């Protein structure tokens, strides 16, 4: 039928546009691709994936080629005799039953091998990390690293939304959930595994690239309102940097010492006084830079980091410098790991007051305010709750709100003021006076002013 409807030309146009777009896309970076092979597990997956994609592409081309050829070859032409009625062909039908079966065997054998390999028990000398899913944030616990607090309580290194892994060492994740089902995934490192209440799941792999790196991770099982906002960062660093990081995490937060009960005005002042709030504690880049210039992630920590770096007037964060590597250096974080979530337009905060934030005041507000209902700051006796993320070293983290915003005073202040406006459905109350709190369904009357929030931000930022 010589019938060329105009809409068919759309198809040619669309094909051209699609090709151009794909070529454009190929030039882009794909930082979260599953095709990074930074672990043993991902290389095995890639091997399987290649078999699948090659076999699939071959089948695709074969089927579509026959189809398209049939369409061109056998289209009705005027005066054509009636086609012969063929009802089947047993040989052919057996062929296209058996050949797919053979292809499936080729896929099936390495599949089963890989399943058993990846689900075998992890090496006994593996680093153990407990991953606990919460709506909507991640708790990472390192049970092999424990320490006793002043009161004799046994504590574990625990952090939130940031995962540090040593290169070259197998890590065994123990996956649990406190509430609904979540799923733990760093695409560049390995496939995902669900976190399920009343179940314990395991996942292990060995990050084995030669350089340290930062990766995006995400929750990939729908877990309610802010499922899309349940992200995290994974940092792979050298063993030495990792050790240094652990040592730092084991210590109480530097700022926390100052507010250990009873809060001595002296020590609080000592901790807070030297800081020009915006200059040092508020700008984590600076401190981190100080810590990392000497002990970058690939350079084994000498334990003497800081030597040779002229300490900036504000950079007196002694623990940071003593510990060497304490956090992944922000200036080394690739752009795609720095969140660019826009601030909610409706939420106003006077950024000018941040400059005058007083960490000592903030420490008191935190240790005596509603924060104690949910958060822990190790070393502060009133701060022992485990509902929300552990804040002991919150100042050293690169993001807040489960990877949703960069950890800087502007974002932190708004977070404290009205977390619900910043992240839908979040369990944290609103603290800004005059703001609406969807949890209590009322406007906040007893809360913090912007100036008080600036103090709290100064304190939290000091918890390196």
């Amino acid at each position, binding site marked *: 039928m010589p019938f060329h409807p105009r809409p068919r030309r759309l198809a040619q146009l669309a094909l051209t546009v699609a090709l151009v777009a794909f070529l454009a896309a190929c030039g882009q970076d794909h930082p*979260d691709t599953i095709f990074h092979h930074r672990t043993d597990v991902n290389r095995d997956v890639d091997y399987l994936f290649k078999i699948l994609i090659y076999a699939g592409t071959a089948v695709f081309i074969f089927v579509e080629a026959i189809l398209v050829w049939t369409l061109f070859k056998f289209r009705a032409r005027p005066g054509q005799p009636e086609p012969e009625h063929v009802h089947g062909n047993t040989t052919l039908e057996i062929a296209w039953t058996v050949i797919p079966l053979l292809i499936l065997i080729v896929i099936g054998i390495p599949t089963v091998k890989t399943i058993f390999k990846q689900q075998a028990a992890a090496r006994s000398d593996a680093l153990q990390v407990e991953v606990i899913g919460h709506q909507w944030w991640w708790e990472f616990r390192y049970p092999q690293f424990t320490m006793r607090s002043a009161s004799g309580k046994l504590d574990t290194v625990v952090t939130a939304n940031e995962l540090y892994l040593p290169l070259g060492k197998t890590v065994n994740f123990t996956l649990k959930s406190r509430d609904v089902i979540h799923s733990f995934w760093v695409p560049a490192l390995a496939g995902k595994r669900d976190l399920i209440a009343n179940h314990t799941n395991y996942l292990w792999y060995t990050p084995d690239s030669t350089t340290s790196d930062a990766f995006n991770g995400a929750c990939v099982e729908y877990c309610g309102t802010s499922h899309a906002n349940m992200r995290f960062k994974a940092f792979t660093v050298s063993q030495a940097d990792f050790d240094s990081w652990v040592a730092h995490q084991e210590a109480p937060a530097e700022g926390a010492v100052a507010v250990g009960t009873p809060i001595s005005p002296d020590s609080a002042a000592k901790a807070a006084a030297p800081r020009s709030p915006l200059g040092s504690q508020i700008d984590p880049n600076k401190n981190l830079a100080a810590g990392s210039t000497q002990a970058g992630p690939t350079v084994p920590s000498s334990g003497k980091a800081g030597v040779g770096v002229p300490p900036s007037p504000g950079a007196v964060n002694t623990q940071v410098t003593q510990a060497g590597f304490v956090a992944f250096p922000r200036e080394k974080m690739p752009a795609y790991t720095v969140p660019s979530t826009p601030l909610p337009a409706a939420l106003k905060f006077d950024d000018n007051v941040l400059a005058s934030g007083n960490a000592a005041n903030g420490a008191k507000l935190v240790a005596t305010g509603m924060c104690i209902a949910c958060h822990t700051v190790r070393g502060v006796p009133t701060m022992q709750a485990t509902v929300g993320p552990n804040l002991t070293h919150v100042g050293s983290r690169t993001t807040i709100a489960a990877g949703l915003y960069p950890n800087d005073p502007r974002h932190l202040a708004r977070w404290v003021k009205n977390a619900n406006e910043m992240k839908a459905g979040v369990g944290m109350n609103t603290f800004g006076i005059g703001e609406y709190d969807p949890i209590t369904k009322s406007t906040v009357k007893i809360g913090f002013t912007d100036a008080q929030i600036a103090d709290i931000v100064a304190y939290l930022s000091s918890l390196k």
Partner: protein
Amino acid sequence: MATAAVSPSYARTSSGSPSGIWSWLTTVDHKRIGTLYLYTALAWFAVGGTEAVIMRMQLQGPNGRVVSAEVFNQLFTMHGTTMIFLVVMPLSAAFFNFLIPLQIGARDVAFPRLNAFSYWVYLFGSLFMNASWLVGMAPNGGWFGYAPLTTLPYSPGLNIDFWMLGLQILGVSSLAAAFNFITTIINMRAPGMNLMRMPMFTWMAFVVQFLLVLAFPVITIALVFLQFDRFFGTNFYTITQGADPLLWQHLFWIFGHPEVYILILPAFGLVSEILPTFSRKPIFGYPVMVYSGILIAFLGFGVWAHHMFAVGMGPIADSVFSMTTMLIAIPTGVKIFNWIFTMWGGNLRFTVAMKFAISLVALFTIGGISGVMHASPPADLQQTDTYFIVAHFHYVLVAGSLMGLWGGIYYYFPKITGRLLSEKIGNWHFWLTFIGVNLTFMPMHWSGLYGMPRRVYTYDAGQGWEIFNLMSSTGAYLQALAGIIFAYNIFRSRTHGEIAGNDPWEAPSLEWSIPSPPPDYNFETIPTVTSRYPLWDIKHPELTASVPHSRHGDERNDVSLGGKHVGAFHDHMAAGTPEGGLNPNATQASSKVSLKTAEELGIPMPYPTIKPLWVALFMTLMFASLLLIHKDKLPLAMAGVVTFATLMTGFLYAWLTAPLEPHHH
């Protein structure tokens, strides 16, 4: 619809074709019920499509601000639920209703009033579930509704109640219809229409009814557990009481995977009708097509846990479900090849219906191949819950099911209304759909492999996902445009379309031997069938000479074994003396033939009745009353349940004690 103005192929008497809204509310005619299903499902398609377009607007660029997280979650939950339960299943049901009796040579389904009841339950159930939008509490737990997210501590609102009660209501509709069609197909085939002579659509419909009957009770149980948890404080899914959240997942997917075949097999059936007609060749390997359909359905019950490779079932379960899943690719692949070889050597006429059918073959293949990729658990763990999966199942359900269903609508619209859909407008519809579908779903393979999780209302910039999302959104807008054109085509062609005649496509099966639209009694005389292609026997006996025939309708058909036919051939057909009630001239556009009414012919037709509608309405209200429990009005809820249950039972009693049709004489 079949009012006097749009019944062009013959002049109807008023008694033969009552019109007006009351006639539609009381109808028990399978063709009218099919028509109701068709237009209702198309209306919900507009709703579900709009939901998709809003989501694509939100995801068009990073950090979108079109809708909030909560609204987005409601949108994707309702998009999935709507498209599966309110669009694809009822569209299939529209064809089951309209076609099964016509294809097997029957006057109606086995239980005409139960059939009306199924439709009304579907309508009220769909309205109930969507009423949640009006109170701002649309379901938000995903179409899969994983516990414990759907349990009371994590979803205290009415959202999940609307969802689970709505699904329970819709389940009643599907089950009632399934039993009805099974009974119809087993008992009401015309003489000679033995199972291996049934048209492929009826065969696939038959298989689907068994899937429904076996799969729906499982989700019913899962939902009853959830209802008891939410309403009465039981602990089937309460994690604080030690419940295992995987209970829901296993129950859900034991239903959920067969559900996939419930959605795709009717479309496969339609394609198996369309391809032979427009190739002017019989289906290639009829018995194998039948067996592969049955095999797909059977294996479909043994693969459910491939939706759960990430939950940690252990290596043995993972391996077993991986293997069974791969196996299911074999009968599916057989179908693809048999379709292609149906066209091979034919005279292909590229009507719009044919184009849609070919698209299913071409594009479903893509969904099938990505399906095999998921069957390998280690690879699946990198793919599941990303946009790669979204791409996969939209290639199955949009490029597969919907393409087949659209083709079916273009093919059967003339039989339903008496007028052809415009091919010119249809071509725009087809090409925009074809481009839109590929532009939407093909880039999702990449966004998924590049790490984009699914079910996210937003994503950050700089992840390399922007271009793919922009393409997907553009494709979605094209699909929306295609949908508008489709609606216009239906609207216009109902009154201005070319008059179809009995058999506009020169098709082989029984439904094309009767007028378009068919009279309420379908067949003046019940035909006697002697082969798989009764109309081709009449019009082109030389073409069906090699098909096994029987001399008499009630003889067993012969089976083709090893490519050799055994048994009698149809010399009587070649002599031009067809048996039974098939009118050799039926295929002429007999526009002025005056048909007799059922009464004149002495055919007893079931009485119209409103009672199934009332029973359906009160059943829906009975379920809806349970919502009040969560408004802390338990006594009121119970009063509602008792009242509506009483009314439902009363009308059911009236229905069951009223005679179905005049007594036979």
